[in-house]
């Protein structure tokens, strides 16, 4: 069966996949630290300019837990979206930055039994976390920071 992370990506240039721990600068809403660029597997995907050109880079990290994390950075280097998929969730406190506490606050209002996912869908913050033991998946993005032409469907 095909896992969701296996999909065709448009690659430009030489790529090197390295297992790394997180750069604290690469949180949602923060900026990609250029010093870490050489440790990060870079993939550049340029959207077709049919409607509007949308340029962003996707930085993919494979965590020690084998979970794959993607950080979507705009042309100015701001991480406007993140996603994860794997047997364990990543450290969301690190990945979501200040938005982690927002997530906890929203989750504190819910009863959790029967709710095997978190869905925060607000004007300035969307966090979706789902899956089950052995197979967790999620994404988070800042709608106001999304480059033109990029939609939630592109975050995966």
């Amino acid at each position, binding site marked *: *069966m095909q896992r969701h992370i296996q999909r065709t990506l448009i690659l430009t240039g030489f790529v090197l996949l390295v297992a790394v721990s997180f750069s604290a600068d690469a949180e949602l809403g923060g900026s990609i630290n250029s010093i870490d660029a050489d440790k990060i597997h870079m993939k550049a995907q340029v959207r077709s300019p049919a409607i509007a050109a949308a340029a962003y880079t996707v930085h993919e990290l494979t965590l020690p837990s084998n979970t794959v994390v993607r950080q979507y950075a705009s042309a100015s280097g701001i991480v406007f979206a993140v996603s994860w998929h794997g047997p*364990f*969730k990543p*450290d969301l406190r690190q990945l979501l930055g200040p938005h982690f506490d927002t997530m906890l606050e929203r989750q504190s209002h819910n009863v959790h039994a029967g709710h*095997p996912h978190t869905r925060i869908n607000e004007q300035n913050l969307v966090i979706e976390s789902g899956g089950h*033991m*052995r197979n967790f998946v*999620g994404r988070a993005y800042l709608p106001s920071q999304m480059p033109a032409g990029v939609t939630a469907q592109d975050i995966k």
Partner: protein
Amino acid sequence: MHTHRVAACIMAMLLLALASCGGGGSGKPAPAPSTTANALAITVDGQFNTINVPFVSVTVCVPGTTTCQTIDHVLVDTGSWGLRLINNGSLNVLPAVTNSSGTALGECTQFADGFTWGSVRYADIKLAGEVALHAAIQSIGDQPGGASGVPADCSGTGINENTAALLGAKGILGVGLFTNDCDACLISNSTNPIPPVYYACTGAACSNTLITPSQMVQNPVSLFPQDNNGVVLDLPAVGNGGTASLSGTLYFGIGTQANNTPGRVHAYQADYYGDILTSYKGVTTSSFIDSGSNGIFFADSAITQCTLSLGFYCPSPSPLPLTATNIAASGGASGNISFNIVSVDALSNNVAAGNIGGNAAIFGWFDWGLPLFFGRKIYFAIENASTALGAGPYYAY
């Protein structure tokens, strides 16, 4: 589409023959028949302000003794494996699981919306007449080894579900498709680095550690001496107005007694992740069957979303009749499912069970939650366990 081979196997199995059918159980012995009391009552009563949460009562004893306690309103969860109970102090009597150095173990269990953290303790687990002796369980919300904090790689994954009110249950009885809650945590599998699940804890700190099978929180069903190849959930149908209380049964074992022998059912083999496939409106996606999900969650932008019950569907008119096709992970067996989605906002406040659904948390996965079980007996076979429908892991209905 139904495979005739499966239908023929059902006939053979009804005669309690030793034929092995379905995707791959040939060569293994048929499960031994059992006369142990294997039926545990399920109640869907809306306790803790929930909807579609199936509860059972679980008895745990200090191993080898009759010092026991019964915990009610434990969620029966086919999407996880292992017994986890909120420790309000009463579980302190259960001995702590320690490693070979005598250091107490703690466990972090991740769920999609948070985590549970606490000690690992030994108990004799008693469910109906079935007993799992000296089994490791997770004792939620206490301080393993006296450690007062939660490890950062645990607390960083979401909200700490350490009370019954927040969890929405007094515990979770995981009886899904697998035995071990962390294969990669076993010393014999020697992974590097160590998964963020088990920790050796002292008053000063917890550090991740590998463990042995007897230290691991396992699916209690795997530990029964009989009726140990899976479970069956049997809940009655629910009308479109929902109901304030629903009663059903959790049976232990598949094809080991008259009450857990499948009739005309189809087995859908699951993959390593416990997933199968679902095709809906021309799109095929990963899916799973989970009594711990309180609705059928799937992506369909054509269905009106609720304004009050965020994340749920409020179709108009209600109910909305829908069809999907479930497919075995390997692409073998497939079959259609018809299901109704009723508007959540239209249900009265005291409804504890209803045919509700909502938009998928993520990536369009299809999460077949409790409404799939209403009026449909569903069989969950544990990986590598032998059943007359073949070896697990599979879902069958």
